[in-house]
């Protein structure tokens, strides 16, 4: 606490804090900074290892040396020659973008109905959403797999994308919490002006909920981009539909001893999501905060 450096009321009457207080304040700042620098090192060290290994020669990657000598940028080019990265990236983009769009479009009305409209069974429905959030995906996937198999869609991206167009438990949950924070007076004002519920949703709620929607979209994009389990389950047998994560995992098992290439591929796969993240970070933080603080 910056305010905590005023420990006793008497200190307030003085223009300049006494030397002891100033010294303590300085020591506190040093302690805070060093603690966070340690934390930063712990957090960033794994990336250091990835990045450095990605630039090593194959022989060096297997040795105990930590610094690449010489730097081998060729690794990144080699990855493109050895694996259909563009195809995987295209599949990932189709999956992530269409799924995210579906989540946003379908979850908004559901969240609205669960928060701003009173109807019998609303809490029960919200309870179902929470249960869906709690179900371990590895188990609940059995009945769904049987269903997709009957429809003949296993092997494509359909089973990955289509469910997202019917709402997603986590997004519904997040949006509902946000919609709850919109003051009822706004909605009443719109109702008095003759707006129907649909128009209220489209004009009032959507405008106010932009940060929350951005957060949900970002979460959904991040999740689908990094999704491994579902693509593995549904597209394993069909390499032309592999997404980046499956490709990366296969690449690792094919080039197991070539750590340098594997790490270069890892960095390439991570790049787009990091870029998206930095671009959307502000909207995202805003959305999450508003959802929580005023909930």
């Amino acid at each position, binding site marked *: *606490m910056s*305010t*905590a450096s*005023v*420990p006793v*009321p008497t200190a*307030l009457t003085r223009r300049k804090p006494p030397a002891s207080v100033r010294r303590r304040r300085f020591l506190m*700042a040093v302690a805070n*900074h060093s603690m*966070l620098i340690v*934390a*930063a090192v712990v*957090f*960033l060290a*794994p*990336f250091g*290892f990835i990045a450095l290994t990605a630039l090593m020669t194959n022989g060096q990657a*297997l040795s*105990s040396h930590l610094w690449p000598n010489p730097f081998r940028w060729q690794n990144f080019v080699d990855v493109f020659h050895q694996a259909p990265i563009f195809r995987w990236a295209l599949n990932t983009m189709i999956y992530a973008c269409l799924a995210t769009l579906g989540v946003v479009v*379908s979850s908004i009305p559901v969240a609205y*109905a*669960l*928060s701003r409209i009173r*109807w019998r069974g609303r809490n029960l429905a919200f309870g*179902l959403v*929470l249960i*869906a959030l*709690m*179900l371990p995906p*590895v188990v*609940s996937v*059995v*009945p*769904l797999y049987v269903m997709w198999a009957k429809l003949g869609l296993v092997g494509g991206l359909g089973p990955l994308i289509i469910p997202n167009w019917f*709402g997603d438990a986590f997004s519904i949950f997040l949006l509902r*919490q946000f919609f*709850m924070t919109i003051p009822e007076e706004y909605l009443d*004002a*719109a109702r008095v002006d*003759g*707006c*129907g*519920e*649909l128009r209220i949703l489209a*004009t009032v709620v959507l405008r106010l909920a932009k940060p929350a929607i951005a957060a949900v979209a970002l979460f959904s994009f991040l999740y689908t981009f*990094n999704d*491994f*389990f579902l693509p593995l389950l549904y597209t394993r047998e069909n390499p032309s539909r592999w997404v980046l*994560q499956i490709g*990366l*995992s296969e690449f690792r098992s094919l080039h197991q001893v070539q750590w340098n290439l594997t790490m270069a591929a890892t960095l390439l796969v*991570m790049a787009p999501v*990091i870029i998206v993240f930095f671009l959307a970070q502000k909207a995202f933080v805003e959305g*999450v*905060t508003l*959802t*929580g*603080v*005023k*909930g």
Partner: protein
Amino acid sequence: MASVAESEFPLASRRRRRFTRQRIGRVLAPYALLAPAATAIGVILGYPLYLLVKMSFEKYGLFELIRHKGRWIGTANYAHILHDGEFWRVLARTVVFTAVTVTLTMVLGTAMALLLLQVSRWLRVAITTGLVLVWSVPVIVAVDIWRWMVDYEFGVANWTLTKLHIGNFIRHDWFANPWTGFGVITALIVWGAIPFITITVYAGLAQVPQELLEAAAIDGAKPWAVFREVTLPLLMPIFVILTSLSIIWDFQVFQQIWVMLDFRPTSDYYTMAIYAFHQSFQISEYGLGAAIAVVMVLFMFGATLVYLRQMLRTGEVQ
């Protein structure tokens, strides 16, 4: 709000028919909005759930899977689980693991958010960058990095610990002992979960009115007291959501353990989700697996009940 009023009113008064149409619309609109909601909840959330619960009361093995039809056996699956010592060991392990992981994540994440408020801008930007980087790592990659770091032959961890003379860690296998093995897994999960907690709490902290903190400090409150009496109550809704989400996520942790132990963890490493997966797909007792999943959900509901009630009540107040 004004723009809505201005654009709507003339439209509504222009024609009388519009009124009736609007009135009908107002009665039906909730149902129009509810239709996709009901479909979504019914088809995507409800139907699999129904199938799962039904399956948990059935003998559903490979034979039944081929026939697409289970055989009703009542509560036999549940009786089997509850009389199985393995189940209780797995449950206890999962509860302890969740408690430790959630506590560490929340405490460390919040501590980092509090520290972030204190330091200079450049360090804050550096830390936020690091957090975002960690956040965007796919689980598969994160697990591989950690596995590589604690590798018994080439791992950085063993090399560093030996060099620092903490002990002889040459060829030390962290996963030979489930306690140290779970230590590594916990570290990995906490490492991966902190960014979300820290960034969210930090964003919340930034919204706490500065005057309140100053007022408390002027009244002579110690930093810890300020946090407990002012910050914590204000951020309670955030902590409620973050804690319940963390409990839900950590209780059903699967991928990290599964990949970390080469897709074949020994029974010492079973958590509830792995146990359920094992019963379903490795022994092909889908009925048993479904029953375990149902018990898991009941358990999570119990663990988060206080939070859930608060969330529901949030809706009632307004």
